[in-house]
C-alpha cells in the first residue's frame, strides 16, 4: 500500500494510525525533592547545571528499506540489490544511496549504524520508548521526549520541553511519567492557547492582570507543598509566553529569510524543529514519508529519498553552522528494515532482523559506520545491537543516565531502559 505525503499514515494492516488524541501539555515537572536530587547529582558529577542538550527524533513511519538507503549491497544478486547505486561520501570508504547526494557531502557530520535488530511491529513504540508496543502497552514505558520533559520542565524553562510535529502516537506517550509530559502538539488547543483570543486586546489583558493581582488573597505560606508558589511562577511565565510569543514565532515560518525557506521547501517541518530547539525546546519529534513499501518500493523511494535528503542534510548543516552540533542530537530511523529479497510487486516486505539508523550531533563521534549486515543485508554481521542500546547511547550523550529510575504506578522503581549497553564507538 502506498502512502501519501502529509495524510494520515495507513499501513499494510489497514489500520490508520491517526493522531488519536490531540493534546499538548507541558511543564509539570519535577517536585522540589526531584529537583534537589538532580541538582545534587549534577553537583557531585562536577556539573553546574541540569542536562541541557536537546534532541530531534525523525521517525520514518512504515519502516524504510535499509538496502536502498544507508546499507546498499551492490554485489548482491539482482533480486536483492535493487535498482539504486551507491555513491561515495566525503568520508573515504563510506557509501550511501545515490538519492542522498546532499548527505554524501556531510558524511563527516553524521554516523550510520547498520546492525540494529528490531521487532516486527508497525509502531513507533520501540524507537521512541525502547520497548515494543506489545510490552509498553502494559508497562507504560515513557517516550524519550517525555523523559526529557520530566527532567527539563522547571519553572525556569517557559517553553514546552517536548514537541511533537506528528501528533500523538503510542511512542510519544509519557506512560507512567504522567499525562503532563505528553508532547505539545502545535495544533488544536495547545497552539491556540499561545495567542490571545480574538476579542481580548492587549489592553484588556492588562486590565485582567490588574484585577487578578488584586483579587488573589490566598496566602502562599499556607501551602507548604509548593503548588501555590509554582502556580504563581507558571502564571508569570505563561503571561510572558503569550505576550512575547516566542514559541508562536518559532512555529511561524513566514518571518524566516527566503533563502532558508527555499532550502527547506517541501520539508518545512525540519526547519520548524530547528527553530523550536533554538527557543529552548528539549525534544522535537517529526515524521516524514510513508515507507511501508510492499509494492513499488523503488518508485516510492525515488520520490521520497530526495525529500529526506533535503530535510536532514539542511538540518545537520544548519546545526553545525549555528554551533549547535554538540548540543543537539539527531536520530532518524523507522520501525524495522525491509526484506532483502524483492517481492513480485517490486516491493519489499517487513524485515526486523536488521535495520539502519542515522545519528548526528550531540557531541558524538561522527564520520563513521557502526556495525554491518551480511552480504545480502539479511542479518547483522558485525556488532549487532538493539534499538534500546541505541537509545541508551542517545540518553547518555544527552547527559542522562539510561539506568536512572522513576517510580511507576505500582511504586516500583523502573529503569529508563533495561537493555542499556551503550555503543561506545559513538561516545568516543
Amino acid at each position, binding site marked *: 500500500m502506498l502512502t501519501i505525503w502529509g495524510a494520515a499514515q495507513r499501513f499494510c494492516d489497514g489500520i490508520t494510525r491517526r493522531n488519536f*488524541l490531540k*493534546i*499538548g*501539555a*507541558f*511543564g*509539570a515537572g519535577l517536585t522540589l525533592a526531584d529537583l*534537589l*536530587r538532580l*541538582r*545534587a547529582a549534577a553537583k*557531585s558529577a562536577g556539573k553546574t547545571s541540569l542536562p541541557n542538550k536537546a534532541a530531534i527524533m525523525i521517525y520514518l513511519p512504515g519502516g524504510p528499506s535499509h538496502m536502498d538507503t544507508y546499507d546498499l549491497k551492490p554485489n548482491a544478486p539482482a533480486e536483492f540489490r535493487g535498482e539504486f547505486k551507491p555513491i561515495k561520501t566525503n568520508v573515504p570508504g563510506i557509501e550511501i544511496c545515490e538519492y542522498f547526494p546532499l548527505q554524501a557531502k556531510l558524511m563527516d557530520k553524521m554516523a550510520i549504524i547498520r546492525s540494529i535488530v528490531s521487532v516486527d511491529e508497525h509502531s513507533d513504540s520501540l524507537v521512541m520508548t525502547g520497548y515494543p508496543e506489545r510490552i509498553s502497552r502494559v508497562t*507504560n514505558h515513557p517516550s524519550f521526549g517525555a523523559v526529557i520533559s520530566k527532567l527539563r*520542565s522547571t519553572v525556569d524553562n517557559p517553553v514546552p520541553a517536548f514537541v511533537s510535529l506528528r501528533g500523538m502516537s503510542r511512542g510519544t506517550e509519557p506512560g*507512567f511519567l*504522567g*499525562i*503532563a509530559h*505528553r508532547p505539545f502538539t502545535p495544533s*488544536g*488547543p495547545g497552539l*491556540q*492557547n*499561545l*495567542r490571545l*483570543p480574538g*476579542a481580548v486586546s492587549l489592553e*484588556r489583558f492588562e486590565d*485582567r492582570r*490588574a484585577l*487578578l493581582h*488584586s*483579587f488573589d*488573597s*490566598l*496566602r*502562599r*505560606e*499556607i*501551602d*507548604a*507543598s509548593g*503548588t*501555590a508558589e509554582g*502556580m504563581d511562577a*507558571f*502564571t508569570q*511565565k*505563561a*503571561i510572558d509566553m*503569550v505576550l512575547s510569543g516566542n514559541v508562536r514565532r518559532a512555529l511561524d515560518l513566514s518571518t524566516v529569510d527566503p533563502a532558508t525557506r527555499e532550502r527547506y521547501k517541501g520539508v518545512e517541518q525540519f526547519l520548524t524543529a530547528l527553530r523550536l530547539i533554538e527557543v529552548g525546546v528539549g525534544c522535537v519529534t517529526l515524521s516524514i514519508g510513508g515507507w511501508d513499501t510492499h509494492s513499488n518500493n523503488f518508485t516510492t523511494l525515488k520520490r521520497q529519498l530526495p525529500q529526506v535528503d533535503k530535510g536532514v542534510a539542511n538540518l545537520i548543516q544548519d546545526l553545525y553552522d549555528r554551533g549547535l552540533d554538540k548540543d543537539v542530537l539527531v536520530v532518524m530511523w523507522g520501525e524495522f528494515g525491509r526484506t532483502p529479497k524483492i517481492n513480485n510487486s517490486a516491493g519489499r516486505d517487513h524485515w526486523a532482523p536488521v535495520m539502519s539508523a542515522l545519528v548526528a550531533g550531540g557531541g558524538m563521534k561522527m564520520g563513521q559506520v557502526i556495525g554491518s549486515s551480511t552480504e545480502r543485508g539479511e542479518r547483522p554481521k558485525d556488532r549487532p545491537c538493539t534499538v534500546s542500546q541505541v537509545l541508551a547511547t542517545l540518553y547518555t550523550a544527552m547527559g542522562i543516565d539510561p539506568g536512572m*529510575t522513576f517510580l*511507576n*504506578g*505500582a*511504586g*516500583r*522503581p523502573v*529503569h529508563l531502559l*533495561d537493555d542499556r549497553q551503550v555503543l561506545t564507538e559513538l561516545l568516543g
Partner: protein
Amino acid sequence: MRIVYRFVMMLAAITMFSEANGARAAELSAGPALASYRPKPEQVAKLEIYPSQVRLRGWHDAAQLIVTATLTDGRLQDLTGDVTYTVSQANVVRVSPSGMVTPLNDGAVEITASFGPHQARVQVLAEKVHENLPINFGNQIVPIFTKYGCNSGGCHGKISGQNGFRLSLLGSDPELDYMTLVKESRGRRLFLAAPEKSLLLLKGTGQLPHGGGKRLEVGSDEYNMILRWIVAGTPYGDPKDPVVVRISVYPERRVTTRYNRQQLAVYAHYSDGTVEDVTRRAQYETNDVEMASVDFTGLVTTMGQAGEAAIMIRYQGHVTVFRATVPLGLPVPNYTFEPKTIVDHYTLAKWRQLGLMPSEPASDEVFIRRAYLDITGTLPSVEAVRAFLADKDPKKRDKLIDRLVDSEEYAYYFALKWADILKVKRRNIPQRAQGTFAFHSWIKDSLAQDKPYSQFVREILCAVGDDRQSPPVFWYTEIQTPEQFVDDVAQVFLGTRINCAQCHHHPYEKYSQDDYWGMAAFYARVGRKNVVSLGTPVQNQNQARLAIFNRPTGTVTNKRTNQPAVMKPLDGNPVICGPSEDPRAKLVDWMTDPKNPFFARAVVNRYWAHFFGRGIVDPLDDMRETNPPTNPELLDALARDFIEHGFSLKHLVRTICKSRTYQLSAVPNDFNKHDKQSYARYYPKRMSAEVLFDAVSVVTGSPSTFPGMPSDRHGASRAIMLPDEAFQSYFLDVFGRPQRLSACECERVNEANLAQVLHLLNSQEIHDKLSRPGGRADRLANDPRPDAEKIEELFLLALGRRPTPEQLQLALQTIERRGPQNKKQAYEDIIWAIINTKEFLFIQ
C-alpha cells in the same frame, strides 16, 4: 543504581540541611540555640554503653557501640560520636571515633567512654582473631555484594545481568550467585592460584576497567573477606550452617530533637540463636529526606522539621525500621483543644508530643467551601453560603456534614475516586461503554446507599455472570491475569504494593515470591468466556461480553518453584478450598475479618488522605513495616471505629469531617508552619481536574456537554459524573485527570504546570465560557440590581466570601471605565480574574 540514587538522596538531604540550618535558625530565633545537640557535661546524669558486653570472634568481626547519656531532664541523648574512647590494652582491639570496635589480637579488655567527668565501661572479649574460621558464602560473601550495590537492579542484579555477569537481585538467591561466580564462564571470575588476581577483585577494586567503577578498596575488610574466601577454596558453606531469621536495630525508637544525631547498631539473628553485629553491612534508607537523613554507617541526622522520622534498614532480605520522634523543641503556650470525634484524641496527643500548636478553627466561610468541595466535589451555591453564615445553630457544621454525605453529589464524587482505581475504562472500544456505565452506576449506587465496604469489595472480587447481571464483573475486563489480580487487590484493597515480589524478594518488605504467588493462587479458578447477547448473530464478536464463572479446578504456577502455588493470604495460613467453593470468597473472608491487619486500615488511610491531602501512611497505598504511619494510634482507632460501625464509609467521612482537626484553619502559626504530617492545620490542595472543571462551569454560568451524556438537571454535564475516561477534554487532561492506567491514586496529578495556567488564562474554551450569551457575565450585565451586590454574589459563589472593600472598588471601577455598553465585557474580565486566582483554584 540504587546505591547511586540513595547517594544522591543523601546529598539532597545534606544540601537541604545546610540551607535549612541557616534559614530556619534565623526564622526561629525566638527558640533555643540550635547550634549543637551536644549537652554540657553538667546536664548529663548518667552515661551508658550498649551492648553491655562485646564478644568478637574472628578477625572480621566488629561491634558498634552505642553510647547514650541520660540527661538531667530525663531525655536520652546519643553521644556515640562525641565521647572519647580508651582501651585498657591497645593491642587487643581498636575503637574508631564513631564507636566501632574491631579486633587486633585475642584477649579481654575494657573500653571506657568518657564525656567530661562521666564515664561508662564495657568488657570486650576478642577470640580466634588469628584463626581462619569457616566461611559461609550466603552469610558472609553475598551481603558484601548487596552493600556495595553490585547486585542492585541497576547493575548485575537485573534479570539480564550486566555485561554477561548476573547476580541475584539483592542477594536473594545465594545458590545462583555461587554458580555464577564459581562455575560460569569456565570459572574465569576467580583465580584460585593467585586469588588477588581474580577478575572479581580486580574489577571490583577498579584495577581493571569496570563499568561500575571502583566499589571496593584493596585491603578493606570486605576485600579481605572475599580474598580469604577464594584462598579457602571458595567454600559454599555447610548446608547445616545457620541462616539469618530476623534482624533488629538498637535503639528501635528514640525521642530526639531537630538537628540531632543518632548512631544505630544492627544485629542479625541466626537460626541457631547466635547474634551478629552487621551494622557495617546493612543498608539504610530514610523515608522522608525532609525529616532525617542516614549515611552508609547507620548514622542518622534529623533535619529542621518536627514530626516522625523513619529509617528503613535492610540486610539479607530482612527489614526493620528505626523510628525517631522529633519534637519542635520551642516553648509552646498553653492551649486547650476539646476533642470532638476520636480523631481529635490522637491528633492532639501527637501535637503535645511534638510540641506543635494547632491553627485556629477555620471560619464559617472557609469551612462551608471546604466541606462542599471535599465531600461533594461541588461549590456551594450562594444561597447555601448565605444561609450557613446566617445560621446561629451551634450544631450547624455537623448538620451540614450530615446533609452533604447524603447528597447525590457525594456518591458521584466518591464514585469517581473509586472508578479511577478500579480502572473503569473504555479504551476506545465502543462496545465497552455498556459495561463502564453499568459498573460506574453500580459503584455510585453502592456509595449512595452506604453499602458496607466489606460487602462492596466482596461483590467486586467474587463477581460472576456477565456485566449486565452483575456490573462488577466489568472489573475483570482489566484484570485478566493472576498477576494483575494480586497487584490490584493488594494495592487497592490492602494498601500495599507487592508487585516487586512477583519476580524476586521484595526489597523493602518481608514478602517473598511465595507470598506473592500464594495470593495469586486465589485467582486460579476464575473462568472467563465471551458470551453473545441474545438476539445478535453469534459471528458478531463485537457484541460478545465477558462472563466470569468459577471453575472447579485450576492452578496458578509459582514462578519461583514452577509448581502450583498454594492459596495463602499475606501473613495468613494456607487455605483449602473445595471444588464447589469459590477461592475468591475465601480471600474476601480473610480480608473482611475484623482482625485483618490490612483491609480497614487501607481504606481509612485512603479516605484520610482524601480529606487531608496526605495519608497517615504516605504514599497512601504503600503500607509496610518499613513505612510506618506518622500516627499509628490514630490509624488504628479510625480502623477500629470503622469496623465497629459496620464498615460504613459514610460514618468514616462523618468521623473525619466532624473532627475539630479537619476544621482547623490552613493559616499556620509559628509552631506548625513547617508541619506536613501531623495535621496541626489544614493543608490546602488544588481542586482536582473534574471538580475544577465543574466549578468553572458554574461560576461562568456556562455548563458544558459531553457527548453521549444526558444534559438534564441531574445527569447534567458535570465532569465528576463521567463514568469512564473516554470523554475527550483538553481541560481535564491538562489538569491531571488520570487515564486509569494503574490502580494508584498517584496517577492523578495535582501539581501545577504551565499548560494548565495557560489554559485557564488564555484559552478559547475559557473565553467562550466567559462570553457565552446567557452565561453569567451576560446575565449579570443585564441584571438591574446594583453592581456592588452582584459582585458580592460572584465572590460568594466562587470563593465563599465577600470581596474586600478594595477588591469591590476595583471591580466597580472596571465596570464604570468600560461604560454601560461594554458592561458584559467588564463582567467577563472580573469573572476571568476570579477563576484565575489561587484562592479559587485551591480548597483551603
